[in-house]
C-alpha cells in the first residue's frame, strides 16, 4: 500500500514539474510560477511514512533540478527536511480540514523556498533575487495554498481507485440476535 502511495506521489510530482516547465501563462500573468512539490510533501508527510517522504524528496528534487538551472540535487534536502518536520506533527494537525491543509501548504512552501535559497547561496550560486522576489514568494505560497487541498483530494481519489476497498465490519451482531421459537 505504501509502495503504491509512493508511486502515485512520484507520478504527481513528475506531472506537476512538467506542467510548471511547460505552462507559461501563470508566470506571465502573476510574475511567478507554481510549484507542486511543497503541496505533495505536505500530503506525503500527513498521510504516509518517512520512507515515502524520502522517496518523494529524492525523486521530486532530482526531477525538478534536471529541468532547472539549479545544481543537481539541491532541492532534495529542503523537501525532505520540511517533510520530516511536518511528519512529526502528523498526529497533532487536523489534516482533514481544508484550512489546515491551506496553512500547511503555505508553511511548507515558505520553508522549502527559504531552505533552498540558503543552500544555493551557501553553494556559491548566484540566483536572481531582489525585492520582486517577495512578490514571487507570496504568489508561490498562494499557489500552494490553493493546490494543497486539491492535491489531498486528488491523492485520496487516485489511491482509493488503485487500491482494494476496505471491507466495513457488518452491522449484524450475533449476540444481539432475537431468536424465536423453541431452542
Amino acid at each position: 500500500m505504501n509502495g503504491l502511495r509512493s508511486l502515485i506521489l512520484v507520478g504527481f510530482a513528475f506531472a506537476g514539474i512538467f506542467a510548471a516547465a511547460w505552462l507559461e501563462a501563470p508566470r506571465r500573468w502573476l510574475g511567478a510560477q507554481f510549484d507542486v512539490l511543497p503541496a505533495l510533501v505536505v500530503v506525503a508527510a500527513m498521510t504516509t511514512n518517512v520512507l515515502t517522504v524520502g522517496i518523494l524528496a529524492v525523486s521530486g528534487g532530482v526531477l525538478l533540478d534536471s529541468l532547472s538551472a539549479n545544481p543537481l540535487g539541491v532541492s532534495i534536502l529542503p523537501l525532505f527536511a520540511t517533510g520530516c518536520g511536518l511528519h512529526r506533527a502528523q498526529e497533532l494537525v487536523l489534516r482533514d480540514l481544508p484550512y489546515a491543509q491551506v496553512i500547511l501548504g503555505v508553511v511548507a512552501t515558505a520553508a522549502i523556498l527559504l531552505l533552498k535559497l540558503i543552500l544555493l547561496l551557501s553553494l556559491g550560486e548566484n540566483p536572481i533575487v531582489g525585492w520582486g522576489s517577495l512578490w514571487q514568494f507570496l504568489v508561490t505560497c498562494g499557489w500552494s495554498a490553493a493546490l494543497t487541498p486539491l492535491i489531498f483530494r486528488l491523492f485520496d481519489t487516485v489511491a482509493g481507485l488503485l487500491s482494494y476497498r476496505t471491507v466495513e465490519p457488518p452491522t449484524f451482531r450475533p449476540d444481539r440476535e432475537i431468536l424465536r421459537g423453541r431452542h
Partner: protein
Amino acid sequence: MLNKPYWIGFAVVLVVTLALLNLPEQVSRKARLAVGSLFVPLFGLAGFGQTLADRTSDLTASRRALLDELATLRRENVELRLQALQHAEALRENERLRELVAWQRQTPWKHKVARVIARDPEDWWRTVWIDLGSRDGVQPDLPVLTPTGLVGRTGDVGLTRTQVLLVGDPKCRVAVLVREAGENGVITAFSTSVLDHRLVDLTNLPRQSALRPGQTVQTSGLGGIFPPGIPVGTIVDSRSVGFGLYTEARVKMAADTSRLREVLVLMP
C-alpha cells in the same frame, strides 16, 4: 527526540544529496540530461497538442481576417524586398571596401530555427529548453536570438534538446557596445528586474559615459561568444555607482524573453 527512522532517512538523503552535489561537472551535466530526458515524450505530446490547437483555431479564422492579413503581408513583402535590394547593394559596397583595405571578409550567419519547449520551473533562473540538440549540430555557447534581438546562449546540450541561458541570467554575460556613445560594457542580471524579464543591467561602463535613454545597445563581439552587431536593446536610464567611480545603466531588451516560441540558433 527524533527516532530511528528519521535518523536513517536523514542519513540516506544527506548522502544522496552530497553525492549529487559533488559529482564532477561533466557527470552532473550528463546525469541532469539523462533525468530530464524522461520528460521528452511529454514535451513531444504537448507540442503536438499545441500544433493541433493552432490548426483548429486556423480553421475557424474568418475569410475577412485572412484577406486583411494577406493584404498587410503583401504590403510588408514589397517594403522588405525594397529594403533587401538596398541592403544587397550596401553589402556589395561593404565587401568592396573590405577588399580595398584588406579586412577579413564577414561570413554570413548560418542559423537553425528551434521551438521553445520548456522554461525553468524555478523563478530565480532565466533559462529555457529548445527542441534542437547535438544531433542537429548544436554545441554549447552558441548565440540564440530572435528577429528582434539577442536572446541568450546555449548551455547544456542533449541529443534532442538544449538548455538556453537567457540574457539576464547570472550565467549569461554579454559584452555589448552602446552604439551612439561608443561605450563598451557587460550585460548582467539586475536584481530589481526580477518581475520584468526585459530589463537587464549594463555594467563596467566608464564614469564619464555619455549615455542617454533610447540609445541602442548591440553585441560588441569582445566576449568571444556573440558576433558583433546583434541588437540587444535600448538604454532606459543610467546612474553613477561605486562612489562615482563607474556607471551602470538599465537596458530594455529588444527581444521579449517571456514570450518566446521560436528562436534562431547561430550555427558555427
